[in-house]
């Protein structure tokens, strides 16, 4: 039902055109969701033991029982596929939020030091290793999560010294990136050969450590963020008009930025803590979503999450297929896909979408 059916004074043009665009965008989101399902099934089918995608889908949906297939799918492949989807969604979402609140197309938790903070936290625990009373298995993700928060707080504290404007926050992010990269290099310099190898492996990023518990925690973080974002999505859209216009519409840009950065810190912290530093998904996914959906944050945030999830699922498939029988680090794969795409994105300027 369109507005014209209810209110005869509304000419069909504007309202009808708007509803038609909304329907097109929802269709776009539905296609992305369908693509994501296919990619996830493909992800589950790929691995040392060959399983047909149809058998995997049947097992995942509990439509057929086959003990061997069920065991592989439910205890190994499904958690990995779920974590790939959830982490991809988290990173895509955080990238979109950061690009919006910082009014900067280069913003993402990877480029502005939040992932670097997490990486430093993880490396710190690995280097200190035996000294800690807690097993590394738990200490590494906790430290990564905490230092993602520290980096985010650092970005905001530095930026807030001069009014928390988008330019200053972006510069503060770059400062955090270099700071934590330098600290990470320092740790690598003083680490024992074994610890160094462990750090490097952690930084590559890997989905192989995925478990149902981790998937549930990441899903929990996303579920926590969703109502906040749903409530703030129009305010975030207003921010695209600039702080002055947003303020005239009654949006408190400073508090919105603070709130959004807190969400970014939680989502990035959880995602990076469990799978390591996976780059580029957060930077690139929002740009793809923006091309198809525009800046209306209701669609952009949902679209960025879907594209991020789709990208990481496909990267997971690629990481298992590039060298048959071996696992290629997923952090490298996403960057290998991300870099050429990003260059193409910069060069292509037929129509400015940013």
């Amino acid at each position, binding site marked *: 039902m369109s507005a014209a059916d*209810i209110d005869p004074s509304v*000419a069909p043009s504007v309202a009808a*055109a708007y509803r038609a665009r909304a329907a097109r965008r929802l269709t776009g989101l539905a296609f992305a969701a369908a693509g994501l399902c296919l990619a996830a099934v493909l992800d589950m089918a790929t691995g040392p033991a060959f399983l047909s995608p149809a058998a995997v889908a049947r097992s995942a949906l509990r439509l057929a029982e086959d003990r061997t297939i069920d065991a592989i799918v439910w205890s190994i492949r499904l958690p990995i596929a779920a974590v790939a989807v959830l982490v991809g969604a988290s990173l895509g979402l955080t990238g979109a939020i950061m690009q919006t609140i910082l009014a900067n197309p280069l913003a993402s938790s990877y480029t502005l030091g939040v992932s670097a903070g997490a990486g430093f936290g993880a490396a710190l625990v690995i280097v200190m290793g035996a000294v800690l009373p807690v097993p590394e298995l738990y200490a590494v993700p906790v430290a990564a999560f905490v230092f993602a928060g520290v980096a985010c707080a650092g970005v905001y504290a530095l930026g807030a010294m001069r009014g928390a404007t988008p330019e200053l926050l972006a510069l503060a992010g770059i400062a955090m990136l270099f700071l934590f990269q330098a600290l990470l290099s320092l740790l690598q310099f003083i680490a024992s050969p074994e610890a160094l190898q462990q750090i490097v492996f952690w930084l590559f990023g890997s989905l192989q450590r995925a478990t149902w518990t981790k998937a549930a925690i990441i899903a929990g973080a996303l579920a926590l963020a969703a109502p906040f974002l749903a409530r703030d999505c129009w305010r975030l*859209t*207003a921010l695209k008009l600039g702080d002055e*216009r947003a303020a005239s519409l*009654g949006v408190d840009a400073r508090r919105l930025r603070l709130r959004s950065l807190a969400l970014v810190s939680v989502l990035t912290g959880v995602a990076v803590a469990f799978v390591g530093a996976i780059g580029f998904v957060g930077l690139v996914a929002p740009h793809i979503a923006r091309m198809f959906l525009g800046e209306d944050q209701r669609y952009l945030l949902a679209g960025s999450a879907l594209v991020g999830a789709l990208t990481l699922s496909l990267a997971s498939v690629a990481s298992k297929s590039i060298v048959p029988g071996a696992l290629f680090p997923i952090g490298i794969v996403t960057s290998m896909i991300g870099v050429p795409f990003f260059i193409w994105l910069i060069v292509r300027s037929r129509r400015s979408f940013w």
Partner: protein
Amino acid sequence: MRLVFDKVGVAYGSTRVVAGVDLAVEAGEVVALVGPNGSGKSSLVRAAAGLVRHAGAIRFEGGARIGYMPQEEGRRPALTALEVVLLGRIRGLGFRVPDAELAAAEAMMTELGVARFSERLVGELSGGQRQLVYLAQALVAEPEALLLDEPTSALDLRHQMDVLATVRRLTRARGLACLVVLHDLNAAARFADRIALLHEGALACCAPPEAALTAARIATVFGVEAAIGRAPDGRPTVTPLAAVG
């Protein structure tokens, strides 16, 4: 409603940019705020919009809703014209846009003649069309006072006329109190009921155009020697001749 400035001052740190301004904008009246660069025009309007702290009092008598349109600063968001106008009703928007909000946005866009651009990106519109879209955003919230900061800068003559005539028409029709910052003295003379002249942060005068725009005052405030003429309707015209001194 009535917009009243009572001994209003604005300072950025230790720099005072506006001091002791007394001014009242009546319902249905357009007051043009003019003055040289740095005379405090934008600061005064931003104070009224609640964006900068100020000394003294700014009262909105008999109303509360303000529509404020800042200066154009060249941002080109990938939002459609309709989305920009809808943001003027941000409080009523949920995850689904209610039909009533859509109808309000459509009605305002139709009134300002921009309904046919509703699905175009604002960044791809011409400057004049974009200003009208932002004006629709300010008006769709049904404000009782309208604060416009240089709505016609960077517009060609035709679009300047369009925007200012629309502002005056709606101000009259809705009984708004309208304060508009203008650079162009001739545009101010044509469309304003009164002209408020700011000089170094203080109000030099506030009077109908023919009383406000005298050669002597323009020489003092702008440092320009000007010839004052008369348009067919009796309003003054200003032809700048040379810088004084």
